[in-house]
């Protein structure tokens, strides 16, 4: 059980400073995410035939353009770090035992890092025209 003497007193000097940057990051990333996520939803779900049009060829068409590769990679990083840090706030609020709190937070950041690595590998090493037996799935420009 963590007891904080008065609600305003930081745990330690160092972690107070870290919390300040985390607090600031939530706001800065939030502002950027509005542009990235609303743009993402507008192009993928609103324009054209929306969800109906999404398939491998659609994604390949987007990621053939570095603009969308950068867009999506940035969105991946910011959303995952923002979301994970937000979940950390909940864990800190609701967990009652210090060991469990530490374990949950460690799990959150492990998943966050794994998904960032996986997602970044996907967006940066992506090949819009891979060797595949299912040529049907490929975008028009590969054929």
């Amino acid at each position, binding site marked *: 059980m963590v007891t904080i003497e008065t609600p305003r007193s930081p745990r330690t000097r160092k972690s107070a400073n870290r919390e300040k940057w985390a607090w600031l990051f939530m706001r800065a990333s939030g502002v950027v995410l509005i542009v990235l996520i609303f743009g993402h*939803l507008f192009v993928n779900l609103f324009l054209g035939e929306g*969800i109906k049009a*999404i398939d*491998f060829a659609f994604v390949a068409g987007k990621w053939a353009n570095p603009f969308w590769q950068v867009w999506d990679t940035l969105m991946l990083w910011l959303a995952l770090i923002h979301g994970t840090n*937000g979940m950390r706030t909940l864990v800190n609020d609701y967990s009652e035992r210090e060991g469990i709190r530490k374990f949950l937070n460690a799990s959150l950041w492990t998943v966050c890092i794994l998904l960032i690595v996986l997602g970044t590998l*996907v967006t940066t090493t992506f090949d819009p025209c*891979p060797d*595949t037996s299912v040529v*049907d799935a*490929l975008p028009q420009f590969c054929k």
Partner: protein
Amino acid sequence: MPTKPTGTLYRGKTGMWSWVLHRITGVAIFFFLLVHTLDTALVRLDPAAYNEVIATYKTPIIGLAELGLVAAILFHALNGVRIILIDFWRKGTKYQNLMFWIVIGLAILIFAGFAPRHLANVFSHLPVGK
């Protein structure tokens, strides 16, 4: 005897409910993002497998769930701006209640622009045949 707290930012009024909603929507979006990162990673492994998985996103039930997701994102994002304004704008706390209703209004407006189009896309694509 302690007096009943009234008019504080976080108890019982829009200040509290916006916090509850912000928290719930944040968690919901987070778990969707975990799944969405994994399903998108399939494009790197196998185009056909990706198409199969993404086809479930076009079914009526998931299609409706997407409306919920978009609604959650709309509220979370717009209320995020409200939080930022409360923190950084001199008059933020004074107008936090009004800003809550602006957030709700804007969210409904944008949602109303999106929902019919999305529903049309989902329900004109019931996977019969191909």
